[in-house]
């Protein structure tokens, strides 16, 4: 097996997605099949290859240090599920 229930559970937690037991069961089976398929990559010898993370041969794309207009604050917070005095509001975070 390429992936088990505990790994799916751990991964879902990393991704911050709550799964029901049923979903967990279901996804574990499906992901295991997908990973079994993907396993065919292991038949290739890739040790001498560079990974392609950017397909174009591009480099050094910059902008100048120039200040541009920011968004009006009304536009910033208009989509917010919860807000207070132009600030985004979330459940209390306990730091200390």
């Amino acid at each position, binding site marked *: 097996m390429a992936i088990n229930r505990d790994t799916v559970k751990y991964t879902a937690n990393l991704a911050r997605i709550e799964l029901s037991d049923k979903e967990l069961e279901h996804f574990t089976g499906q992901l295991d099949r997908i990973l079994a398929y993907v396993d065919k990559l292991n038949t290739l010898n890739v040790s001498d290859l560079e990974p392609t993370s950017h397909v174009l041969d591009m480099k050094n*794309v*910059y902008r100048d240090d120039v*200040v541009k207009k920011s*968004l009006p*604050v009304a536009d910033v917070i208009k989509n917010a599920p919860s807000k207070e005095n132009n600030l985004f*509001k*979330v459940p*209390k975070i306990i730091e*200390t």
Partner: protein
Amino acid sequence: MDYEIVIGLEVHLQLNTKSKVFCGCSTDFGSAPNTQVCPVCLGFPGSLPVLNRRALELGAKVSIALNCQIAEKIRFDRKNYFYPDLPKGYQISQFDQPLAQHGKLSIIVGNSRGRSLQKIVDKTEKKIRIRRVHLEEDTGKLFHQKDSSLIDFNRCGIPLLEIVSEPDMNSPEEAYLYLTALKSILEYLDVSDCNMEEASLRCDANISLRKKADKKLGTKTEIKNMNSFKGVKAALEYETKRQMGLLEDGKRIIQETRLYNTEKGVTEPMRSKEEAHDYRYFPEPDLAPFNFEKSFLKSIEKNMPELPEHKKNRFIKDYQLSGYDAGIIVSDKNTADYFEKCASLYSNPKTIANWLIGDVFAYMKANNVSIKDLNLKESYLSGMLRMIDSGVITGKVAKTLLIEIIQTGKDPGKLIKEKGLEQISDVKLLEAATDQVIAENPKSAEDFKNGKDNAIMFLVGKVMQKTKGRADPNKVNEILRNKLKGDA
């Protein structure tokens, strides 16, 4: 048991670009919440980052100053984690191809030896290795209320330079010296405000203890939440004691993150449970990689300002300052600039250094002002020193005059006339004053005549008092001796 303290520091520095690292929003401090944000720094769906060239330049400048090897190819990576101050769910940072690596920074360490009465402090140079320097984006700011937390994203996207040292510091004092030396260099480079209170400079520390003979490092704790260099030192001192106490009781150190509580002066474990980190770094597909062209680096190198270490050596050589004086003066760039300006106006740099480190610093300290805000033109200070040399005023008068100049902002020449502070060299006036003093202090006069040479100093002092410090002390001395000898 003898333990060795092992400390490594991680400094986060806001670079003083005008606009943010990946978008055009302003980096000004203190604006109304969420007014310096745009789709890019808010991480709105569909927005994309474009690198601010200036941020890379400033990062390269710091790397050069810290003697690092700058990478030929650099790349940005995504550091993935969830936190409400991180709008995209990832921070654009650098993982395995950072801006620069393998640097070093020198600190001057004092080693005391001998017993307390004949204690000798050796000043030796110690090199702290810099592991890496990388560029990343700052996060938003959280405000905690009773039942909720609020987020302001103005700070989000300000360029941050992370400077990570090797665990080369062996005492809280060394950590403090490292930070001071680092700050001094950063100020010379003019790349950041370096203000810990405004969080433009932040510092986290890793600390562990090990038995002197051990090669393996002990279990470390990470200390956060210090808001001054002294706070860093105090936190590390506390943490050293705490860890030592545990080890001596045969207990184990738990690897954890602890927050420094400034009010209580203690470190406390973070209450929120930290999960094992799995940041899933991968190359940021939205940014093309960067190759440092030689010409780009050369132009930065060409524009590098003189750094404190170099300046110190030059001051010793060119101005014949002692290593100690030069060290104090160059530790702050504004002070060094001030000194050099004065030195261009007045020919005895050693005297400038004495006054600067003595009376000027004392005034600054008492009144809590920096040299930048001090109301003392370089031409006034050097003018005043020249007037001492030419005998217009006495050194004693100069001490009070200096404060008058600072407080009124007036030209020293004018002040001397207004207040009548010129030195009295007129022999007749001085003779009259000495006569009076001898008459009023017959006992001391007698003592001198009987061979008690010290007594003359008392009489000179009395004459100075009578003339409000304006008498030329050498002349007074001469007149007194003549008069008393003549009587004898």
